[in-house]
C-alpha cells in the first residue's frame, strides 16, 4: 500500500512537472524569437509561477538538483517581474537551458526516484546571471555596524565580537555561497560564524542569572552582567538578530546604577530572561553547540525557586476551589480564568522550565485549563485531580531548587493527561447515545473503512462525528466522499470549491494529502447529494480535473494502475459512454458529467496513438468504399451475366448446364455484392461511432473556457461604470482539449466588445426602460457535429448606420456599395481588421483589433461567425465550430517525394493548368482562372523560400482561398483526402512558417500539415519581394464584401 502511494506520488510529480515545463517552453521560445514585443506582466507571472511550482514540487520530493535550478530561475524571473531587469532574448535563452536541464533532471529523477545533481555549468551561468544583477546592490548585511567602537573587553566577549565581525565581513561571500549552494540556512547564512558566536556567549550567559539575585548589589557582579549582555547583544547585532538585541537592551535598561533590582524591575527581568533563554535555544539548536543555556537554566532555577513555588502554590489554591464551587470552573468562570492565567504565567516566566520535563507538564496543565476556560472541554473531576496531583509532584524540595522529574515519569503523566482529555472532550457531547459505547464506535469505523474510507482520515474525527457519519451513510441518507483538492492551483477555483462545500455537503475533516507537497488537501465530505450531482458540481468548478479529484466511499473500486512512466496524462472516464449527440437546446441539461467516479490517468500519447490508428482505419474504410462502390465492373457483373445468359439462350445451341452455372454465378455475385455493401455500411457506422467515442477521450467541458469570462466581464464592466450580470451555460457541451486555448481569445474579445460597445451605462438603460443591470449570456449548444456558442447581450445592439459610415471611412467598402448592403451584411464589417466604431479608444477595446481577433481565431478553428442585432434590444454573436480541432480533414499531396497535408477547409478547387493559361508576370507565375489572375507557387518552393518558374505546367494545381485571397499550389500528385489526427509539435517546428502541425500516418510516416493562413502570408511576402507588378485581383470572385468569412465550413 505504502509503495503504491509512493509510486503514484512520483507519477503525479512526473506529470505535473512535465506539464509545467511544456507550458513554459513555448513561452520562452516565443520570447527568444521576438523579444520585447508581447512580454507583459502576465507572461512573466506565468513563467514565475511555473518555476515556483516546479521548485515546490522538487522540494517536496527532496530533489535538490531540480530545486536549485528552478530556484535560480525563479529568482531571475522575480527580478524581471519586479522590474529590476529585462527579459531579453539572452535571458530567455538561459531560461530555455533551464527548462532543458529541468526536463533532464525530471526524467532521470523519476526513473531512479532520487535526486540528480544539476549541471554545474548551468548553475555557474545562473549564478553569474544573478551576480551581474546584484552588482550595485553590494554591502553585506550588518556592515554598517561592524566598525562601531566597543567599550568592554574580556575573552568571551572579544571572541563573540570577533566571530560576529568575521561573519559580517564574510556576509556577502557567505550569502553568495549559500544562495549558490543549498538553501540558505534559516537562522543565518554563515553557519560557521553563527557557531563561533554561540560558543563565544557560552561562558558569559549563565552570569545573567545573577541579575535576579541579591548578589547584584556587588559592583563586580553588575559589571559581569553588563559584560554578558553586551557580548550577547553585539554579536546579535552584527549577525542580524534584532529581537535578541531588543531583549538584551531591555535587560540592560533594567540594570540599576547601584544595588539590586527592585520588585517590578525584577519581574520584568525574569520575563525578559525567559525570552532570551528561548532565543538562545534557537541558536543552540541551529548550531548544535552549547551556548550556556543549560547552565543559565540551573542558575535561574536556583535564583527563582521561591518565586516559582509561590506561584505554583497559588495555582493549587485556586484549583482547590473546585471542591466546593465547581461553577467557577465552567466556561468563562472566574476560577478557571485565574487558574489559566497563573499556569501560563508560571511557564512563561521561568526560563529554567524551557527544557525541563516539568515545563512540559506545566504546559499541559495550562493547555487543558485554557481549553476548559473556552468551553472546549469539560473540567471533569478526573482532570482536575490529575492537574492537582501533577502540580504537587512538581514541588521543589524545601529550600532546594526544583528537581526535574525524569522523562519516563513525565511521559506517563502526559499519557494520563491525554487519556483524561479525550474523556473530557467526549463529555462535551452529553445526550449522545455514544457514551463509551465502544462497540458501536468500532463497528461504525469498520463499516466506513470497508466502504473505502481512509482509516487515517477517520481517526481525525471525534467519537460523535464518527458515529453520526456511520449512521448517516449506512442509513442511505448520506454519502461519504474523499475529495482531494490541489487548492493552490487557482484561487478562484479554490474559492468556488469552498462555496460548493458549504452548500452541498459538510467537510467533516481535512488533512494535507500525505506524501504530496502539502499544497494538496484531502477532505472527508458527507453529502446528501447523489453521485452525479457531486461529480458535475466538482466538474463545474474544475472542468479539466486538474485541481479536484473525488472518490465516493462505497463506489466499486476499479483500480487502475499505470505502470508506464507517465509522460503526459489526461484524465478520461473509464467507461466512455457512447455519447448520443443531442440537440442540447431548451432541455438545459445536456450531457451531464460522467456518472462513474472512476478516473483513469492514461498517458496522452496512448490516446494520441489510438486516435491516429482510428484515423487510419477511417482511411482504410474509405479504400474499402472505393472497392465496393467504385468498381463498376463488379457491381455490374450480375446484370452482365444475366444479359449474357439471355443472349446465349436467344442464339440457341448453348449447353443448358452452362447457362445454369452462369445464372448461379450471377445470383452468387449479387448476394456477395449485397453482403459487401452491408458489411461496408456496418463498418462505416461502427467506425463513425468509434471515432466519436475516441474523440471523447480528448474533450473537456466547454465551461473550461467559459469559466474565465464572468470575472473578466465583471472587472471590465466595473471599470466602465457599467453593471452586468453574466450567465454562463455550457450545457454539458464538450470540446476538444486543443480548442480550449484557441477559443478563449475570441470569447474574451466578444465579451469585451459587448461590454465596451453593447451594454449601456445604468442611467442610459434606465432611460430606455431597461433594468440597470445588463445581462450578458454565454451559452453553448451542440447541433449535430458542430459546437454552437452564443454570446448575447441586451445592450443597445449594433448601429448599422454607424458601421456603414465607419467602413466607408476606412475604405473597407465603397459608399455606393455600402448603401446596397443589408444590415446583416453591414454587421459583418466589424470583423474586418482595423475596424472600430468606438469614438474613444479605451484601454481594452476600441483599437480595432478585437473583433478581427475573433474572426481570425474562429477561422483557424474552422468555424463560422454569425451576427444578429436588434437596435435597442441587444446583439447576439453566434460561433459555429467543429467539435474537434484535432481531427483535420486534409488533402494529402505529394511534392518532390514528400507528403504534405493541406486542410480541406482552405481548399477551393483542384485544377490543371494548360500551358497557355500560365504566364510569368513580373517574375511571378500566375494563372488565369475564372477570369482573374491566380498567383501560383510550387508548394515546396513556397515553404523553402525558393521561387521561380514551375517545373512543369501539366501538374495538378490546388487552389486555396481564405475568403480574401486565393493562391494556387502546384504539386506532383494529389494522393487522397483523409482525416488526420493532428499532434502538437515542438514549438521550434511550429515556428517554421507555413507549417501548422504534424500527423502520423498508420505506417508511421510523418506528414507535415500546412497552415493555410501562414501560406497566404508567405505568398504575400514573396509577391512583395517580386519587382513591381500589378496586384493580382484575388478577391473579385468571392462574395460581396471580399467574401469575408463566407463559405468556410470544412
Amino acid at each position, binding site marked *: 500500500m505504502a509503495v503504491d502511494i509512493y509510486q503514484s506520488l512520483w507519477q503525479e510529480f512526473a506529470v505535473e512537472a512535465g506539464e509545467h515545463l511544456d507550458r513554459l517552453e513555448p513561452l520562452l521560445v516565443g520570447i527568444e524569437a521576438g523579444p520585447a514585443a508581447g512580454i507583459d506582466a502576465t507572461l512573466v507571472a506565468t513563467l514565475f509561477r511555473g518555476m515556483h511550482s516546479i521548485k*515546490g514540487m522538487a*522540494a*517536496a520530493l527532496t530533489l535538490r538538483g531540480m530545486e536549485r535550478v528552478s530556484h535560480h530561475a525563479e529568482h531571475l524571473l522575480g527580478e524581471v517581474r519586479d522590474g529590476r531587469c529585462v527579459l531579453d532574448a539572452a535571458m530567455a535563452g538561459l531560461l530555455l537551458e533551464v527548462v532543458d536541464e529541468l526536463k533532464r533532471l525530471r526524467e532521470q529523477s523519476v526513473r531512479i526516484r532520487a535526486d540528480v545533481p544539476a549541471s554545474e555549468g548551468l548553475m555557474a551561468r545562473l549564478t553569474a546571471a544573478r551576480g551581474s544583477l546584484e552588482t550595485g546592490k553590494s554591502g553585506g548585511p550588518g556592515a554598517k555596524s561592524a566598525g562601531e567602537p566597543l567599550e568592554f573587553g574580556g575573552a568571551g566577549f572579544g571572541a563573540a565580537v570577533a566571530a560576529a565581525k568575521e561573519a559580517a565581513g564574510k556576509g556577502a561571500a557567505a550569502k553568495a555561497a549559500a544562495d549558490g549552494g543549498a*538553501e540558505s540556512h*534559516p*537562522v543565518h547564512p554563515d553557519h560557521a560564524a553563527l557557531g563561533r558566536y554561540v560558543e563565544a556567549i557560552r561562558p558569559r550567559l549563565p552570569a545573567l542569572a545573577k541579575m535576579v539575585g541579591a548578589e547584584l548589589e556587588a559592583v563586580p557582579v553588575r559589571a559581569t552582567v553588563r559584560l554578558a549582555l553586551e557580548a550577547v547583544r553585539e554579536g*546579535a547585532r552584527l549577525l*542580524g*538578530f*534584532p*529581537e*535578541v538585541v*531588543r531583549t538584551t537592551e531591555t535587560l540592560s535598561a533594567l540594570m540599576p546604577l547601584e544595588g539590586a533590582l527592585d520588585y517590578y524591575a525584577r519581574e520584568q527581568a525574569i520575563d525578559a530572561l525567559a*525570552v532570551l533563554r*528561548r*532565543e538562545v535555544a*534557537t*541558536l543552540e*539548536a541551529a548550531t548544535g553547540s552549547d551556548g550556556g543555556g543549560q547552565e543559565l537554566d540551573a542558575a535561574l532555577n536556583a535564583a527563582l525557586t521561591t518565586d516559582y513555588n509561590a506561584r505554583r502554590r497559588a495555582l493549587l489554591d485556586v484549583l482547590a476551589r473546585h471542591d466546593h464551587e465547581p461553577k467557577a470552573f465552567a466556561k468563562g468562570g472566574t476560577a478557571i480564568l485565574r487558574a489559566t492565567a497563573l499556569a501560563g504565567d508560571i*511557564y512563561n516566566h521561568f526560563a529554567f522550565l*524551557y527544557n525541563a520535563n516539568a*515545563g*512540559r507538564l506545566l*504546559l*499541559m496543565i*495550562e*493547555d*487543558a485549563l*485554557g*481549553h476548559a476556560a*473556552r468551553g*472546549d*472541554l469539560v473540567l471533569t473531576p478526573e482532570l482536575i485531580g490529575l492537574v492537582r496531583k501533577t502540580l504537587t509532584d512538581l514541588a521543589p524540595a524545601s529550600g532546594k531548587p526544583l528537581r526535574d522529574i525524569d522523562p519516563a515519569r513525565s511521559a506517563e503523566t*502526559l499519557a494520563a493527561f*491525554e487519556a483524561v*482529555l479525550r474523556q*473530557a*472532550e467526549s463529555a462535551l457531547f452529553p445526550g449522545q447515545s455514544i457514551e463509551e459505547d465502544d462497540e458501536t464506535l468500532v463497528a461504525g469505523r469498520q463499516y466506513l473503512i470497508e466502504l473505502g474510507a481512509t482509516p487515517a482520515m477517520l481517526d*481525525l474525527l471525534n467519537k460523535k462525528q464518527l458515529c453520526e457519519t456511520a449512521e448517516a451513510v449506512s442509513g442511505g441518507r448520506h454519502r461519504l466522499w474523499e475529495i482531494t*483538492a490541489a*487548492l*493552490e492551483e487557482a*484561487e478562484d477555483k*479554490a*474559492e468556488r*470549491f*469552498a462555496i460548493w*462545500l458549504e452548500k452541498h455537503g459538510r*467537510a*467533516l*475533516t*481535512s*488533512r*494535507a494529502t500525505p506524501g504530496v*507537497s*502539502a*499544497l494538496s*488537501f484531502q*477532505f*472527508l465530505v458527507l453529502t446528501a447529494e447523489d453521485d452525479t450531482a457531486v461529480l458535475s458540481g466538482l466538474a463545474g468548478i474544475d472542468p479539466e480535473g486538474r485541481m479536484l479529484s473525488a472518490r465516493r466511499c462505497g463506489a466499486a473500486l476499479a483500480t487502475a494502475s499505470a505502470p508506464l512512466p507517465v509522460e503526459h496524462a489526461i484524465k478520461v472516464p473509464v467507461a466512455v459512454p457512447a455519447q448520443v449527440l443531442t440537440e442540447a437546446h431548451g432541455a438545459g441539461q445536456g450531457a451531464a458529467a460522467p456518472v462513474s467516479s472512476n478516473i483513469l490517468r492514461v498517458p496522452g500519447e496512448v490516446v494520441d496513438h489510438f486516435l491516429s490508428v482510428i484515423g487510419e482505419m477511417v482511411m482504410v474504410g474509405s479504400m474499402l468504399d472505393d472497392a465496393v462502390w467504385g468498381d463498376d465492373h463488379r457491381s455490374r457483373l450480375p446484370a452482365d451475366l444475366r444479359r449474357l445468359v439471355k443472349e446465349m439462350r436467344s442464339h440457341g445451341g448453348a449447353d443448358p448446364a452452362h447457362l445454369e452455372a452462369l445464372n448461379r454465378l450471377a445470383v452468387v455475385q449479387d448476394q456477395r455484392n449485397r453482403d459487401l455493401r452491408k458489411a461496408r455500411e456496418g463498418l462505416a457506422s461502427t467506425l463513425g461511432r468509434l471515432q466519436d467515442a475516441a474523440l471523447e477521450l480528448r474533450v473537456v467541458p466547454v465551461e473550461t473556457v467559459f469559466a474565465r469570462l464572468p470575472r473578466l466581464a465583471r472587472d471590465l464592466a466595473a471599470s466602465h461604470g457599467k453593471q452586468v450580470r453574466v450567465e454562463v451555460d455550457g450545457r454539458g457541451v464538450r470540446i476538444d482539449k486543443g480548442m480550449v486555448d484557441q477559443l478563449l481569445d475570441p470569447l474574451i474579445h466578444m465579451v469585451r466588445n459587448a461590454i465596451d460597445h453593447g451594454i449601456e451605462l445604468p442611467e442610459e438603460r434606465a432611460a430606455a426602460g431597461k433594468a440597470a443591470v445588463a445581462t450578458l449570456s454565454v451559452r453553448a449548444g451542440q447541433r449535430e457535429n458542430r459546437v454552437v456558442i452564443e454570446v448575447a447581450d441586451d445592450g443597445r445592439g449594433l448601429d448599422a448606420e454607424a458601421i456603414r459610415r465607419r467602413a466607408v471611412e476606412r475604405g473597407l467598402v465603397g459608399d455606393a456599395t455600402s448603401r446596397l448592403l443589408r444590415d446583416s451584411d453591414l454587421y459583418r464589417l466589424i470583423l474586418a481588421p482595423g475596424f472600430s466604431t468606438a469614438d474613444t479608444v479605451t484601454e481594452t477595446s476600441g483599437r480595432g483589433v478585437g473583433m478581427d481577433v475573433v474572426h481570425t481565431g474562429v477561422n483557424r478553428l474552422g468555424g463560422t461567425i454569425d451576427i444578429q442585432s436588434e437596435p435597442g434590444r441587444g446583439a447576439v454573436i453566434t460561433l459555429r465550430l467543429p467539435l474537434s480541432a484535432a481531427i483535420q480533414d486534409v488533402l494529402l499531396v505529394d511534392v518532390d517525394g514528400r507528403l504534405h497535408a493541406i486542410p480541406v477547409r482552405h481548399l477551393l478547387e483542384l485544377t490543371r493548368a494548360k500551358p497557355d493559361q500560365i504566364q510569368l508576370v513580373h517574375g511571378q507565375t500566375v494563372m488565369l482562372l475564372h477570369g482573374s489572375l491566380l498567383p501560383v507557387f510550387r508548394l515546396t518552393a513556397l515553404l523553402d523560400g525558393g521561387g521561380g518558374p514551375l517545373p512543369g505546367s501539366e501538374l495538378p494545381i490546388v487552389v486555396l482561398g481564405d475568403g480574401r485571397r486565393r493562391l494556387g499550389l502546384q504539386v506532383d500528385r494529389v494522393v487522397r483526402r483523409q482525416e488526420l489526427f493532428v499532434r502538437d509539435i515542438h514549438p521550434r517546428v511550429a515556428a517554421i512558417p507555413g507549417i501548422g502541425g504534424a500527423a502520423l500516418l498508420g505506417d508511421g510516416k510523418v506528414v507535415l500539415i500546412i497552415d493555410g493562413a501562414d501560406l497566404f502570408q508567405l505568398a504575400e511576402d514573396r509577391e512583395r519581394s517580386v519587382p513591381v507588378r500589378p496586384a493580382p485581383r484575388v478577391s473579385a470572385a468571392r462574395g460581396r464584401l471580399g467574401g469575408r468569412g463566407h463559405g468556410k465550413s470544412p
Partner: protein
Amino acid sequence: MTSVMIVDDSVMMRSVIAEIVQADPDFNVVGRAGNGCEALEKLRASDCDIVLLDIEMPRMDGLEALRHLRLISKAKVIVVSSSAHAGSRTAVEARREGAFAVIPKPSGTVSLDLGQKKGHEILEACRKAAGLSGNA
C-alpha cells in the same frame, strides 16, 4: 492599527483567517505566507505585530518557524492548527516555543468552518496579544 500576518499552506485557509481578522477594524492583514520559510523572509523584510501560524506546512513547519522568528521578529504568535487540539503535544510544544495562544482548527487542515466555530476565539486572542481591551 495592529498588523497581522497569516501563515498557512492553504490559500483557502489564508483567506478564511484573513476574513476573520479583518472583521475587526483594529487589525490589518499585511502579509500572507504559505510556509515557515516564506514567513521568515517576509518578516525579515517588514515586521508585524501578530502572526497567525499554522503548524503543518511544507518546507518549514510552524514549530520550526516559531523558533526562528523569535530571533528576528517582535510579533506575537497565535498558532491556528488542526493538530493543536486540547492537550495535544503539538499544542504544548507550540506554547513551549513561545506561542501566545494555540487554537485548534475544528475540521482538519482546511477548516472552512473556522470562522463560525473559532472566529471569536481567534479575534479574542489577537486582541489580547495586541494589548487591546474588550471584545471585538
